[in-house]
């Protein structure tokens, strides 16, 4: 029997204050995206005008399309590499310098983005690589791969090693054992990792602005440069769409991680 959670007045007040602090700005942004008025701060009635404006803004649409492509491709590559790194670190033989290696894998988690962006820019310049879609994708992959590795590795760590041994005992070679037993069991964590990488890439401004080239601005870069000239209500509409997309992705990711926890083992953290 679960006792109903009773909140004191102080708890309710602090909860309301906290939530308001977090979500009031976003709520205002969403409401003002439906504003009919040209002025951002003056309410002029409900309208879908700015959404219409956005879908006719060629440059904005191009930037959004670029962001989506970068996010999907960098998330996919990061998921592949991050999963392989997690498997190597938690399943491979103990090798010299393993602790150092796993520490280095997680360094981008705490590395200031300016440093990551600048170092990548220097690399691309040194390599004389033409900056654009691929350089941003590679940069985002290096940023998000470690997040995927963390999520997948924690799931692998909670998996019983004897499951793989049982598969081998029942006639699987090590590769088959991984594919038929381990992979289905860590799939929810891999999906969650992909979603995380996708959203991280979608909203990154700093690294993208270091590594992108002329004519291939991502959505955050585009929005940032527009805002510098003054906030247009159209920006509110775009931001509302991005919030909606990210909300959907987060919900799917947490459902996936919940699915993984309902399979008896502890869930991947998200």
């Amino acid at each position, binding site marked *: 029997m679960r006792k109903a959670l009773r909140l004191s007045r102080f708890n309710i007040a602090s909860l309301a204050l906290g939530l308001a602090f977090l979500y009031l700005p976003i709520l205002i942004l969403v409401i003002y995206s439906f504003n009919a008025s040209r002025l951002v701060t003056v309410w002029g009635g409900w309208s879908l005008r700015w959404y219409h404006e956005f879908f006719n803004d060629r440059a904005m649409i191009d930037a959004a399309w670029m962001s989506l492509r970068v996010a999907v491709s960098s998330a996919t590559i990061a998921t592949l590499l991050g999963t392989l790194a997690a498997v190597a670190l938690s399943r491979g033989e103990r090798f010299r310098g393993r602790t150092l290696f796993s520490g280095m894998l997680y360094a981008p988690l705490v590395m200031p983005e300016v440093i990551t962006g600048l170092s990548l820019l220097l690399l691309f310049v040194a390599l004389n690589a033409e900056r654009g879609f691929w350089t941003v994708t590679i940069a985002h992959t290096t940023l998000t791969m470690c997040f995927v590795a963390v999520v997948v590795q924690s799931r692998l760590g909670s998996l*019983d090693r004897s*499951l793989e041994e049982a598969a081998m*005992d*029942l006639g699987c070679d090590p590769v088959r054992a991984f594919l038929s037993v381990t992979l289905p069991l860590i799939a929810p964590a891999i999906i969650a990792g992909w979603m995380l990488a996708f959203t991280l890439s979608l909203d990154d401004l700093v690294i993208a602005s270091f590594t992108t080239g002329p004519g291939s601005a991502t959505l955050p870069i585009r929005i940032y440069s527009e805002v510098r000239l003054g906030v247009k209500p159209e920006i509110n509409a775009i931001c509302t769409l991005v919030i909606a997309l990210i909300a959907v992705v987060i919900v799917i990711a947490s459902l996936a991680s919940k699915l993984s926890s309902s399979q008896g083992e502890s869930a991947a953290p998200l």
Partner: protein
Amino acid sequence: MTDELHRTDAAADAVGRDPHPSAGQPLLRIEGVAKAFGTFRAVDGVSLDIKSGEFFALLGPSGCGKTTLLRMLAGFEAPAEGRILLGGKDIAHALPHQRPVNMMFQNYALFPHLSVRDNIAFGLKRAGLARDDIARRVAEMVALVKLDGLEQRKPDQLSGGQRQRVALARALARRPQLLLLDEPLAALDKKLRESTQAELMELQRRLGTTFIIVTHDQEEAMTMASRIGVMKSGKLAQVASPRELYEAPRSRWIAEFVGDVNVFEGEFKLRDGHRLVIATREAGTLVTAEPREPVGGTKLAVAIRPEKVKLARRAPVSETGREAAINSLDGVIADICYLGGSTTYKVKLDAGGTVQASVVNSARLDVDAYSVNQNVVAWFTPDDCVVLQS
């Protein structure tokens, strides 16, 4: 080690030998197998023959190397030294999936994403059986372990006992020559464990598959196995039938590990025909039946199982009675532990030591029971004594 004081064949025969007399080639031959983790020698030169159709138990405290040995048989660890011959073929370095051996894991290791049916069919699919054959074999296994009606369930929808059956069915489905069981009953409660022990024995008899079970529970090993190998610090301390292990342990450590025992240390005093008279510090002079000459020093230990110690209110007076009770020790009841079926009395001996006597409660009304501080005589025959190197 106490190897000098080996049981002779005659002494071993007296307490019952291996019920499977050797018939040609053993199924499994382990030759000088060793494995170290760092500087810790987990398995240290084990040699062992196991015949086809045997129910063999590897018994030992945790950390004695029994699980490592089992994992080497399954192929999860490779021995650093020695050979493992299965049907004459060396499999010491074969991968797990290349051996006609299956293992039942301690925590069962059922695949959580697969149903009971798919768990059991897993190994059969890998073996490349046709669909019909797989379906037939799965049905056979489900019936064998009495899981009918649960085929579609996932492991987390099963009870502990049911999971144990699925694990067993999955391991047996490929019809291995050798089935390895790693503490198969450790996760079950006592009642279920006892009924499962009987079922496992029945199953083994019916299938004729060779079983090797690893356990730290000496009662479990004694109940199920036809032969037991006791392991200590990576070595096999004794391989014997349950009866021989209990009645003729080869060392003091084994005597104390397998069941309860009273041990009195003492010195060799004199030989009188088949009898060996030993002067102990805590129980006075004891007469034992030991035809062999003690080797390597005169320090010996006398071990007597508690149920072999009888209690009486006074020493027997008849000639034959005195002869049987040649070892009779005066003492006083110090402690009483009532266990239902039997009662264990702790007797403080006048000579200084303590002896435990286990008495069967054969009558419902405790007319025969002793009380604390009562003077008693604890006695046992020379045949009940086991002489061990101290």
